[in-house]
């Protein structure tokens, strides 16, 4: 095999893998099928994948006015809060506080899952995916000897302050879930790492790769974007700079926004900046 065809094969493989990954992620994203209205009214679904509300006087295919949309949103949120009376609802301001706080965001903003307290009652408010997962986690936990995980459900340690809130829709995951998610994230970052260090994977034509000027992604400062990039004469995102570098020093072709390689490169660069405060617009 010639060198050129070898490279082409590698490139094709990357494209195929990347394409497959995108297709899979789209296909597997859960879709909330709302029950149809007997009168042909518009039915709006809530983000929990379970709750829905019918809007009287507005037919399927019609557009809500701003006030109608706000009214149905309020109604759905009201319903969600009724179903999850003890849920730890984060207001917008609380999210800011959690992000700025020291330590891992996970511990700060997401309480341990329901059932961390021995004897906690489990409420199944519906048949959505979240509840199913919670049920599975609870079944698994029931089969494991108590005390092995230090008293926490699903391998999560019990809260130091004793009882924790339950009825939480978004907190229903175990340490095992966290480990799986971390492995998947790390693999994505590792893919970015490989691309970052390979002129061939970047599509470069002159043997230059990102790491040659940015070892460990040094001096890429992803936390400073978006910012006005004088050389472009407009506001740039990190991906604009990645593509600029691919096109110019690396002399490859810029990648489309949804390209697997561009996403992986972003993931790798961001992963090198853990703990650095976001400072968009900084020069």
């Amino acid at each position, binding site marked *: 095999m010639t060198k050129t065809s070898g490279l082409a094969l590698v490139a094709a493989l990357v494209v195929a893998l990347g394409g497959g990954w995108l297709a899979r992620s789209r296909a597997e994203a859960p879709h909330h099928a709302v029950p149809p209205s007997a009168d042909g009214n518009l039915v709006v679904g809530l983000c929990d994948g379970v709750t829905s509300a019918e809007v009287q006087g507005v037919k399927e295919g019609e557009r809500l006015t701003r006030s109608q949309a706000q009214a149905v949103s309020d109604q759905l949120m009201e319903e969600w809060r009724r179903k999850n009376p003890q849920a730890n609802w984060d207001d917008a301001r609380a999210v800011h506080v959690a992000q700025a706080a020291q330590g891992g965001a996970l511990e700060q903003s997401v309480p341990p899952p329901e059932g961390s307290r021995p004897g906690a009652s489990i409420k199944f408010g519906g048949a959505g995916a979240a509840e199913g997962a919670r049920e599975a986690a609870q079944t698994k936990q029931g089969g494991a000897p108590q005390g092995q995980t230090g008293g926490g459900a699903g391998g999560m340690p019990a809260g130091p302050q004793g009882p924790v809130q339950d009825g939480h829709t978004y907190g229903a995951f175990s340490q095992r879930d966290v480990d799986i998610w971390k492995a998947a994230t790390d693999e994505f970052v590792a893919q970015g790492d490989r691309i970052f260090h390979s002129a061939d994977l970047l599509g470069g034509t*002159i043997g230059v790769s990102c790491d040659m*000027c940015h070892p460990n992604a040094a001096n890429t400062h992803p936390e400073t974007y978006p910012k006005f990039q004088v050389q472009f004469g407009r506001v740039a995102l990190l991906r604009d700079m990645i593509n600029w570098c691919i096109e110019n020093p690396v002399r490859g072709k810029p990648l489309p926004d949804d390209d697997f390689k561009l996403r992986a490169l972003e993931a790798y660069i961001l992963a090198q900046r853990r703990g650095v405060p976001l400072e968009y617009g900084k020069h």
Partner: protein
Amino acid sequence: MAWKSIETKHYEERDAFFRGLGRVSRRSFFKLAGVSAAAALAKGLVTPQSFQLVELAWAADDGGQAKPKFTFAYISDAHLYEQKLNDRFVRAILKAVDDVNALDPQPDFVLFGGDLAQLGQPKELTLGRDILKTVKAPVKMMVGEHDWFLDMGALWQQYFGPTHYSWDHKGVHFVTIMSVVEKDFWTARGMTPMQRMQTVAGLDNGVQSRFEVGEEGRKWLSDDLAKVDKATPVVVFSHSPLYKYYRPWNFWTDDADDVQAILRPFQHVTVIHGHTHQLLTNRIGNIQFHGMLSTAWPWPYAPEGLPKLTVQMNRADPFDQFDGCGDGAVDVLENGLANALYNLWDRNPITVKASYVASDGGQDRPPTTKLPSF
């Protein structure tokens, strides 16, 4: 495609000129470089000439405190691929060759600071050798890890001779020493020579070993210096810094402490090193250290371990191929110390004076950076 970057347009303008380069002989190669400089002048761009003006200003600046005795220039870290693959780095070293050839008066010699090749390939080393043949002043060669780890220095030594050597020049003892020896990390991993080379060529991988002068090199250095009077100024050339700056990137020499011990008895020692591609200054006791600029690309400053005497250079503009790169000169002074001139392309040059280093930053501080690195 409608939109073209500044650099792309720039390349297109110059491509026609460089297209014929592969076909020219070494003899006409220099003429071509002269044509390039003339073309730049005709456009109103003053490239090599700015270098000379700075030389004069700098000599006047010292006001008789420490007169320059003689000057040598340097070119370093060219990282050449073969030309048909990458003409960008070829352009950069040619620019440096133009710079040093335009110096008037000419430097006593030109040090090449190592990493002539990117992956130790015969075509890369041959291209580099041919380009350096167009330097008018005598060239002193230093070996870098990129030159070595494909064939373990076979071709480099065939072209350029031994890796350790010394000579006396106008009362100064010069030493060139290989500092990029690595312990065998490749045999156990079953690596091919190319895999070994590519591993060493990456800065941010933890697989390779740390650089060292090694026992043999240290013995050679001790024996060589045994003949030298302790009052004689000593200038040492190494590729890696002969101290410990940042281990993960091999901005580092593992046996630096032992090497420094060999240099400690001498009154005036200056170490000039490559590899770090940045304005870098350090002092350990009697030893002053200056890093050299690369012609190919600048490295960012490491996240920790930066010597406190270092006045950082401004962040490089990614939109300018030559920004943060360059060449330079070292002025060996009557008092046995040396001033280092960083000829940063497309920027004002910076001189780091011996008096600044000797006074631990107390006087003659170089201009500080406007944009600190991230």
